[in-house]
């Protein structure tokens, strides 16, 4: 590191090496195993950052423990007297640590993150499916199942009615009851979908150890499907709450 002292030597991801910048031995993720110096953030994903396998049924207690331990060791205050590159790297590592923790802690964010890592792009998929339907003349399979679409459409009709009545200062108890029931049904579906997702996690984790590429792909699709339905319902519940306010 010839320019280790210059201010312009901020490490960019990708510049990180396999060897400790200070003593030259093989280094660990955050600190050198040999000399203990802080290292530039390696260009790894959030699972690898914590040394976890790319699995979803994560023990969040373990995650939290690791997070707090690393937070203390990487905190920029610890490096107040260190070289400027070390200060910069501790800051960089701390910031990556926070991002990684926030992402992995949340079960939905964790799943979405893994799908992105695995190259699943939701919008792309939807466009590809339309292009395929155009080319083959077959009907595109809708991501959201037809009965859920019907329910969403009906509920939106009711909500529109409710907003109209509100503007006129009218009040229709029957309509409110109808919407309340629909909301309850949606919330039940919302909870059920989370359980469905957790079941897919277990399948995924098992397949990571001993599954085929096809099995993994199938589980990815299934998880995407569950997340799509869940988002759909979440938006709808939000609309209902807004209309009821």
């Amino acid at each position, binding site marked *: 590191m010839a320019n280790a002292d210059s201010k312009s030597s901020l490490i960019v991801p990708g510049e990180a090496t396999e060897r400790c910048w200070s003593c030259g031995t093989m280094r660990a993720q955050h600190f050198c195993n040999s000399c203990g110096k802080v290292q530039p953030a390696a260009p790894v994903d959030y699972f690898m950052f914590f040394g976890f396998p790319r699995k979803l049924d994560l023990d969040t207690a373990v995650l939290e423990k690791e997070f707090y331990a690393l937070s203390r060791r990487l905190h920029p205050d610890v490096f107040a007297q260190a070289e400027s590159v070390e200060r910069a790297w501790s800051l960089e590592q701390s910031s990556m640590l926070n991002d990684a923790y926030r992402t992995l802690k949340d079960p939905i964010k964790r799943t979405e993150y893994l799908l992105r890592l695995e190259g699943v792009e*939701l*919008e792309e998929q*939807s*466009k590809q499916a*339309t292009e395929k*339907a*155009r080319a083959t*003349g077959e*009907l*595109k399979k*809708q*991501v*959201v199942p*037809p009965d*859920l*679409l*019907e329910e*969403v*459409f009906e509920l*939106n*009709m009711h909500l*529109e009615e409710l907003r109209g009545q509100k503007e006129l200062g009218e009040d229709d108890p029957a309509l409110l009851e109808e919407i309340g029931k629909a909301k309850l049904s949606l919330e039940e579906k919302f909870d059920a979908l989370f359980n469905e997702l957790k079941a897919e996690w277990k399948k995924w984790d098992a397949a990571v150890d001993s599954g085929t590429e096809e099995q993994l792909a199938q589980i990815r699709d299934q998880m995407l499907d569950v997340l*799509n*339905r869940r*988002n*759909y319902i*979440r*938006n*709808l519940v939000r*609309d209902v709450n807004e209309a009821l306010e």
Partner: protein
Amino acid sequence: MAYSDKVIDHYNNPRNVGSMDKASSDVGTGLVGAPECGDVMKLQIKVNPETNVIEDAKFKTFGCGSAIASSSLATEWVKGKTIDEALSIKNTEIVKELALPPVKIHCSVLAEDAIRAAIGDWKKKQEATRPAEMQIQ
């Protein structure tokens, strides 16, 4: 982000809003949704069984301005077209006409899906009600 004038025009004066009897044998109904944003779009066509020409089209969309404009435009475009002509409408044409930004392309995809779904529903009804004629063809 600013909407284009054409989107605003369709949004303020949507064409062909409404619904038709979905049980009718000459009506095809397409109900599609975009999970990315929670939009839901219903598009219906009324087809002349002799000529296969779409004589009327209605839509009802719950969603953003671009989704409403895309479906409004879709009903305008399919009217007077034959089933086959309507099937050739591409989402990119809707994007171009409405000057949709990249983040709103999925709205046009949804409109194309809705047209296909409505035509698919109509075709299914034709096969169900006139199996004998289908065989003659």
